């Protein structure tokens, strides 16, 4: 691959869509590549048994995560799902925090209490998910409610998968938010599979966006592997919410190219289906092609970004590998605000009952 001539390309470039700047396009590229590379590093660590628990990949879904989160302002909040590492990175999650978390280190964001990307940061504006699918919809409705009660022009974005739309909490949360006209955007990432279950076995609706009608809210179906389309659609929904227009449901069409988690050999997924999405509909390939064709960001510049990410990740992995697990007794800390530490069981502290 040869880089376009840097002097002539910007002159020939067509206008950048959606009010984005060239610097932002570069940043979007950075986050896409960071997401993919970070997960690849984690996969290596997983194979070395240095990732203690399961590993969840978003391979082929990075476009929807990065594009949608990029549409938020700093003061807005999001809650990711297991395949939204990219959204968290955009919102300020540090790659080192992600690696520490997967490796269960003392310095991980949850100090070794939780796994994978189940963590958040109230200062940066993202709240970690729990494993119970759909539960973050009511919780994020509550965050949106706090914005409404305080007259703050802030917006909440919550991600669910196709499977989570079958849960009761999804329904209750989106319905409450719709009734209260809360500033919330719900992104249903339809990647075709909930573990081994096809979307058609999850719901009888033809397309998940049809569910919006049942809540009296607008819905839009989006090419989730087109990062700029994901950005634009989310931006529209976010700004409608910010202006008092209430909840929007976005269905992102994408595809899960890896198993549910890294242990899953995905024998139930047709190989040619995976191959076709990989060959023809990879969000990063598509973005690269777009950047090449328009000349917005040169191949040389992109290569430099990839090299920088590679160096950063090497450092981060080394840092995390050399760190300790949490102190065992810290397991008793902060079950409650008060008391801040529980008493050890009597046969663990050496004293009598």
């Amino acid at each position, binding site marked *: 691959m040869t880089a376009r001539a840097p002097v002539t390309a910007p002159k020939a470039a067509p206008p950048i869509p959606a009010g984005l700047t060239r610097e932002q396009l570069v940043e979007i590229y950075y986050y896409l590549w960071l997401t993919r590379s970070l997960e690849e590093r984690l996969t290596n660590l997983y194979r070395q048994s240095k990732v203690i628990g399961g590993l969840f990949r978003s391979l082929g879904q990075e476009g929807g995560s990065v594009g949608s989160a990029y549409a938020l302002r700093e003061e807005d909040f999001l809650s990711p799902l297991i395949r939204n590492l990219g959204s968290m990175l955009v919102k300020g999650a540090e790659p080192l925090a992600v690696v520490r978390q997967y490796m269960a280190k003392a310095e991980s964001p949850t100090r070794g209490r939780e796994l994978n990307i189940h963590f958040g940061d109230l200062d940066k504006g993202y709240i970690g998910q729990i494993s119970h699918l759909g539960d973050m919809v009511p919780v994020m409705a509550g965050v949106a409610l706090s914005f409404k009660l305080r007259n703050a022009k802030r917006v909440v974005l919550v991600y669910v998968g196709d499977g989570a739309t079958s849960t009761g909490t999804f329904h209750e949360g989106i319905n*409450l938010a719709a009734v209260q006209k809360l500033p919330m955007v719900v992104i249903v990432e339809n990647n075709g599979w909930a573990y081994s279950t096809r979307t058609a076995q999850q719901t009888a609706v033809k397309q998940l966006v049809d569910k919006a009608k049942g809540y009296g809210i607008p819905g839009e179906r989006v090419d989730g592997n087109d990062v700029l389309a994901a950005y634009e659609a989310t931006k529209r929904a976010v700004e409608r919410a910010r202006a008092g227009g209430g909840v929007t449901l976005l269905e992102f069409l994408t595809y899960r190219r890896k198993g549910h988690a890294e242990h899953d050999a995905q024998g139930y997924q047709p190989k040619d289906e995976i191959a076709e999405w990989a060959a023809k509909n990879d969000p990063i390939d598509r973005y690269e092609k777009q950047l090449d064709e328009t000349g917005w960001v040169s191949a040389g510049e992109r290569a430099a970004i990839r090299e920088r990410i590679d160096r950063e990740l090497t450092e981060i992995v080394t840092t995390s590998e050399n760190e300790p697990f949490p102190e065992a007794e810290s397991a008793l800390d902060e079950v409650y605000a008060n008391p801040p530490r529980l008493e050890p069981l009597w046969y663990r502290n050496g004293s009598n009952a």
Partner: protein
Amino acid sequence: MPEVTYLEALRQGLREELQRDERVFILGEDVGVYGGAFKVTEGFLQEFGERRVIDTPISEAAIVGAAAGAAHMGLRPVAEMQFIDFISCAYDMLTNYVATARYRAGLPTPLVVRGPSGGYVRGGPFHSQNPEAAFLHTPGLKIVCPATARDAKGLIKAAIRDDDPVLYFEHKFLYRRIKENLPEDGDLLTPIGKARVAREGTDLSIITYSATVWKSLEAAEQLEKEDGLKVEVLDLRTLLPMDDEAILATVKKTNKVMIVHEDTRTGGVAGEITARINEHAFEWLDGPVLRVTAADVPLPYAPTLEDYVLPSTADIVKVARHLAAY
């Protein structure tokens, strides 16, 4: 000091906290226009407006989930379950999300979930439940069960100010049946985690909470008159965290203990209290720890059936006599 009912005391506590702290708000089914199924929040919509008194859809999981999200952002939500029986619809949200939020993610989650619990009111299986045992097993939650008007007020105020999620189980049988003179001025706060000796005694202890505090006091009165027994009654007030100090103090004082609760027997709170006494004060006991509880059945409707299933004053007297004979 005007006389107020348990329900009025609860309402006063809620109103005072709404007035004191603008972060406090109420959400639940029919809490606004209607003022709540039992009128606990009557007049609040007019006084505090629809932003702070929110009528929600029939969605207990969303009510609790939204309360959690708002609490993370610095608000102090009080969520009402119209009948506490419906808290089971929010069980996932409470046990998986709310109770773990601080521990797993450092998320402040200061919220209160409250609602009318308990039987003796011919409410049948779905308007009479006592759900405390289902949540006693969940680290991260606090559980309070006021028995008096003073504590109805003092505990709701303390619960709202607490930095942890608190389940506040009020008893609907007590709502309008008990009254107490409460001071009008000053902050009436009941500390969470502290039991109260409701009646002093030296011969035998009854450990109890909520409505059965009153049945235990009646039984103690009768036992003193008829048997000359001095029965101590300990009102736990808080179930989580449990006041071990107060429990052990009464065990060491009377050496004979029975536990009375309205909830069903198997896996109930009494079993946990018994285990704690067994572990920490075995050598102080002069008899077995005995339980008076509901029978292990869903609570039936007909008066004959409900009265048969729930613990009565006569049951407490009978078991106390059995224990006193050791």
